[in-house]
C-alpha cells in the first residue's frame, strides 16, 4: 500500500493555482526529496497531504484511505514555521502532545530528544535555539509513531551542526521503523545525499518523479558543437548554448554522436536543467 498517492490534485487560492494536476505515488520506506523553488507549491502539497488544506480538484490518499479534511492517523507533519506553544516548557509541550493524540509514545519522544546534546526539558520553548526548536518539533511528530513523516523545510535556518543532528534523527527513524519520509527543500544541497526518491515540482506541477539513481541513469548531459545538434537523439529537457558549444540535458538519450561528449548528470545539473526549462516555458508563455 503506497504511503501517499495523488490523483490529478490541484489547489487554487482565489485566482492562482498553487498546485495543479499533480499525480504521483510514493514508494514505501523511502526518503523522498520534494524539490522546487520557493513558491513552487511544495508547502501546499504537503499541507494537503497532512489534511490541513483540501484540494480544489483531485484526491489524495494516504495508505489507501482518501483524505477528508483531517490528518491520517499514521501521518505526522512538521510545518515550515515549526508551530509549537512557545510559552510551554519542553516537558509540558510533550504532555500536550500526549493529550492530543490517541496513539502516543512518550518513550519515543524522550528517545529522540536524547539523541541531541542538551535540550533542557524544563526550558521554555521560546528560549531554545532554532535547531532545538526543530528537533523538539520533530520529536513531537515522531511521538505519534507515524508511518509517513511529512517535513516542510526541516533543515531551513539551521546551522551545520544542528542540520547534521536533525538529519541523524530523521535517518534513525527511517532505520528503526522503516518510516517513509517526505522532506521538502528549496536548497538541493540539503537533501542530495540523503534522498533516494525525488519529486521535483515547479509552477505547481510535477516535473520529475522517481528513484534518484534511476532518474539520473535515464538522463545524459551531452556537450558538443552548437552547429550540429541534429545528430543528437533523445528527448531534450533543456540546453545552454555559447557561440560554439551546446550543453544539452537529455532524457532517454541515444549514444553520444561523433564530436559529442556524454556523461550522466549529477543531481544538481538535472534539477537545474528542469527548473531552467520550466522557467523558459513560462517566459515564452508570457510573451504569448
Amino acid at each position, binding site marked *: 500500500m503506497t504511503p501517499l498517492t495523488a490523483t490529478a490534485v490541484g489547489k487554487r487560492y482565489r485566482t492562482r493555482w498553487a498546485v495543479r494536476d499533480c499525480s504521483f505515488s510514493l514508494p514505501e520506506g523511502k526518503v523522498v526529496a520534494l524539490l522546487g523553488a520557493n513558491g513552487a507549491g511544495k508547502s501546499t502539497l504537503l499541507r494537503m497531504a497532512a489534511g490541513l488544506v483540501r484540494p480544489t480538484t483531485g484526491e489524495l490518499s494516504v495508505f489507501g484511505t482518501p483524505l477528508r479534511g483531517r490528518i491520517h492517523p499514521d501521518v505526522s507533519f512538521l510545518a515550515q514555521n515549526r508551530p509549537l506553544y512557545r510559552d510551554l516548557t519542553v516537558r509540558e509541550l510533550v504532555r500536550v502532545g500526549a493529550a492530543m493524540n490517541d496513539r502516543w509514545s512518550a518513550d519515543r519522544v524522550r528517545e529522540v530528544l536524547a539523541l541531541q546534546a542538551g535540550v533542557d526539558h524544563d526550558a521554555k520553548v521560546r528560549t531554545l535555539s532554532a535547531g532545538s526548536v526543530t528537533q523538539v518539533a520533530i520529536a513531537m511528530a515522531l511521538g505519534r509513531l507515524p508511518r509517513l513523516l511529512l517535513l516542510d523545510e526541516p533543515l531551513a535556518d539551521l546551522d551545520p551542526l544542528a542540520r547534521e543532528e536533525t538529519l541523524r534523527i530523521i*535517518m*534513525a527513524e527511517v*532505520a528503526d521503523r522503516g518510516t517513509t519520509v517526505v522532506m521538502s527543500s528549496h536548497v538541493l544541497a540539503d537533501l542530495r*545525499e540523503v534522498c*533516494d526518491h525525488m519529486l521535483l515540482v515547479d509552477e505547481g506541477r510535477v516535473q520529475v518523479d522517481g528513484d534518484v539513481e534511476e532518474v539520473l541513469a535515464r538522463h545524459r548531459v551531452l556537450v558538443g558543437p552548437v552547429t550540429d545538434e541534429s545528430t543528437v537523439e533523445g528527448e531534450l529537457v533543456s540546453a545552454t548554448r555559447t557561440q560554439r558549444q551546446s550543453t544539452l540535458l537529455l532524457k532517454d538519450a541515444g549514444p553520444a554522436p561523433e564530436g559529442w561528449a556524454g556523461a550522466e548528470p549529477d543531481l544538481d545539473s538535472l534539477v537545474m536543467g528542469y527548473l531552467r526549462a520550466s522557467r523558459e516555458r513560462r517566459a515564452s508563455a508570457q510573451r504569448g
Partner: protein
Amino acid sequence: MLTGVIEFRIDRHSGVSTYMQIVHQVRQAMRLGLLTSGDRLPSAREVVDATAVNPNTVLKAYRELEREGLVEGRRGLGTFVTKSLATEATAGDDAPLRRELGRWMGSAREGGLVVEDVDALYSAVRDEHYPAEERS
C-alpha cells in the same frame, strides 16, 4: 556483543555518491586487512548514528557488496564479510611492499619533497604501471 569493526567516513562534498563511498571503503578495508572473513559490518542504524546518512543507502551499498560476493546478510544478525581480500603484500604494518614504500617516502621527505610532489610522483608512476583501461 557484536560491534562493527569499521566506521565509514562520508564526505558530502566529494561529488562521489554516499553509496559508492561506502562500497569503496568496505573494499579498501578488506584489502588492507582491517576487515576479514567473519567480521560484521556496522548496521544501518550504527552508520546513521555516526554519519547521518540515509539507511536505505547503506543497505543498498551492502546489497551491492553482497552481489559482488564480498559480504553476506544474515537475517536478524547483520551483514558479515565472507572472504578476505588482504594478501601478504598489503595487510599489516610490516608487509614487505609497505615497508619499501615507507622507506621511499622517508627519503622523499628527506629530499625536501612536499606532499603535492609526492602525490604527483606517485600518480605518475602508478599510471605508468597501471594504465587506465586496465583499472576497474
